[in-house]
């Protein structure tokens, strides 16, 4: 009998103690847990401050990816309507977020600092296809602070002809 009473008292004691401790449960989705600066969420393709895409379609992110989640197909820029500085741009860009293990290797591999993993982690969807993100979904909305490195990627003026003597 005494045993039982001490057990109840102990239990109630725990309840009382916890009641006055600070709350840890968050009212998700209204309230979100702060994430680390280096959190690795959904991918984003940044754009230069002048609005050109930073991706040059080099495929280095694709080859770095241990999960084979990325597919890049490059193409030649239209000099009258360039998508990126230089000759080449990422014509097709896909990330299969179901394959991705969010290791961040792709970000590390990117030579133009275009690709980075954002804070966004709410990546649920109703179909598998919907989780293969296309370039339009991955492109950043707003320009970044990066400037075009014109010495490496001079503006593409199209094919040149050989100069005659």
């Amino acid at each position, binding site marked *: 009998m005494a045993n039982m009473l001490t057990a109840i008292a102990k239990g109630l004691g725990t309840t009382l103690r916890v009641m006055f401790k600070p709350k840890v449960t968050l009212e998700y989705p209204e309230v979100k847990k702060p994430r680390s600066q280096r959190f690795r969420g959904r991918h984003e393709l940044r754009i230069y401050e002048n609005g050109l895409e930073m991706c040059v379609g080099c495929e280095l992110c694709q080859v770095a990816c241990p999960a084979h989640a990325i597919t890049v197909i490059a193409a030649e820029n239209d000099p009258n309507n360039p998508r990126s500085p230089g000759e080449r741009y990422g014509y097709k860009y896909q990330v299969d977020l179901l394959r991705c293990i969010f290791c961040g290797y792709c970000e590390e591999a990117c030579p133009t600092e275009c690709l980075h993993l954002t804070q966004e982690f709410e990546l649920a969807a109703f179909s598998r296809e919907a989780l293969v993100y296309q370039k339009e979904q991955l492109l950043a909305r707003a320009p970044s602070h990066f400037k075009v490195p014109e010495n490496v990627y001079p503006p593409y003026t199209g094919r*040149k002809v050989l100069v005659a003597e």
Partner: protein
Amino acid sequence: MSQELVTVTIDGRTVQVPKGTLLVEAAKQVGIHIPVFCYHPKLDPAGLCRMCLVQVEKMPKPVTACTTPVTDGMVVHTQTQLVSDLRKGVLEFLLLNHPLDCPVCDKGGECDLQDLTFAYGAGTSRLVDPKEHKPKAVDLGPFIVLDEERCILCRRCVRYDHEVACETQLVVEERGHHNLIATAKGQPYEHHFTGNVIDLCPVGALTSELYRFKARPWDLVKVPAICTGCSVGCSVELHFRHGRLLRVIPRDNPATDGGWLCDRGRFQYQYVQSEERLTQPLVRRNGELVPVSWSEALDEVARRFRAIREQHGGEALGVIGGGRLTLEEAYLLQKLARAALGTGNVDHRVSGQVVAGLSQFPGRIADLSEADTYLLVDCLPLETAPVLDIRIRRGLERRRARLVAIGSVLPRYRVRHGRIGVRPGETAAVLRALAAALAGAKELPALPAGVDPETIRELVALLDKGQKIAVLWDGRDPATGRTLLEALRALQGRPGSRSIHLLIPGEQPMSRGAAYMGLLPGYLPGYKPVTLAQVQETLRRLWGLRQLPGKGLDTAGMLAAAAEGRLKGLYLVGANLALTWPDGDLVRKALAQAEFVVVQDLFLTETARMADVVLPAAPFTAKAGHYANLDGLVQAVAQPAQSPGGAQTDLAIFGALARTLGLEWKTGVGEIAREWQALGLKVAEGALLPGAPADLLGPAAEPAAAGTATVRAQDGELILVPVDRLYAGGGTLAFDPGMARVANRPEAYFHPEDLRRLGLAEGDPVTLSAGEAAVDLVARAAAEVIPGTVQVPRGLPQAPVNRFGGAAAVRVTRRVAEVKA
């Protein structure tokens, strides 16, 4: 290089190599890698880049390993601090003005500059000044994009162009850091072998227009294959990404390509995935070709062929084609004709060539690299088997060999050579005179007008001097073939020893293999005459037949019979006769008259449009099997690179057709190999197929009849000579989007004198006409055209020269420019 051996010690490893071996090569043998940029084993050493500097004991300064031949007792160090510093320094200089735009550079991932910088370079740059900028994305030629900034001036491209292609179009302009790669006159870089500079360029300065930005080397699935562009059969590697063929590169095969490809072999691959490829069988219903299922199409073919056979006998059926197929497919096609359709009317020849390889004077492609005398008879190797021409050019440029060309078409070489130009049909007369002169006759037979007997004597003297004589002939005119053999036998009989090698570039990539597999009337597989009782017996047992059909008709015979209504059913496999057969009218009449025509091809060709059933065949990328090239060399393709898609491989179609005809045939590659074994045919990688018997050239005609001009031109007329051009033709080339830029335009080539005499200028629109036939072309002057003749490319879809039915006397009229609306 002598066979004397010298001993050299490299980094403590001792090796014996033939005297004269270069240090880089000797190091390779002991597994020591000396980094190089400008050195290439197939080019002459140049010593330009200094990347290969090594230290040699007793030599005061470091030496370039790519230009230093080893000497006995040489002691070499490649791993010292000094060498390492030198490499670092060389790379720093090379990278000074290098744009380092690897992410957008097509070479990234297979770039020597990347790899060697990674291995030997400094980690950072000390450059503070701005880099020198040069033009990027320059269109160097139809297939090549040049980035001047990335060029490290190794001059491999320029040296290749001089030493191998023997074209001297590429040059280096300006000086020092301002050096630029350019062409001599600023003209586009254009000849038949430009693509090779892409492979040679160690950096991303020269890249392929068609492959530009399509993939990275690590994406590519690489499948070894054999090029089916012409009868040389170069070894290639096909590179696929996402199932699409993106580029073709050579695999060095000393027996065929020697490491080089022609531009057609390298760049003509997009047809494989062309939107216009047939993917469904078509059957004619109410005059229209409509898509149907495979079983429906095959049922229709089987039903109609069977009906014709029952009504008119097997002789009323004919099979033409097979010169583009594998050996397995060619074998099965003739078996299908003989055993399933019961007809002896089979022939692979579709363009008027009679033989593609003779058993006499057998020659190998490699012989061209050692020959000291070339005799070209009516043959343009550059246009029909381009890679052969690389060996010939080199032989001429290096003064190793001399060349004489005889015929109604003459090649163009920069080096002085002998030429005997005649009218079509007269070549045999020249050769007869040559044969007589070689046999020691005092009095030469009559020579065609304009040929001096003295020329023949000079030719005899030249041939007498030759130790190794390579003869190339186009295999078309049987009389020329017979007299050529006569002349070669007479040459063989002369005092002194010499070897003679005859090569006949095939009209189709696998002409020689198809002939050997029995796609010839009167010859069973292995060139066994159909009349041979013993072979008949073997085949009857093997194929389970009571009766083997006898000697049937050849292509000309079949077409004539069909035009007259005697031949009711035609099965054309990979044969676009409407464009390739010398007499286009006959083809049209034959196809219209025949009751039932089946065409099996990749595309809806001119011929397929006239068919009753069209069966879609798969391209070479979907096939495994064996190919035989022009010297009879058998090469295997072990694995198909692609699935056939909606089309089927020819092998699968023949098998399915046999089964639809109610035959229990097993038609796998293995079963066919067993049949070959039973027939005593040796077909395996590396085997050499024998050449055709000379009877194919027909019986010797009356000397008076053969060898005279086939046509005579009246006043104001020229003699039309159909001529081979690499980029003409309506087959795969016409359906290849990548080739449109170089495809031959409808042009007529005149001798400049004739052009002037006719009051025409370069670029004038002209009409050639003879009787009913007329073809519109653009006039061009070409010095190699024989005066009195006009050359027009064979097989141009826009201007089919076969309207004239071969060589003809044509009237040339200037077309009044059409009024543009």
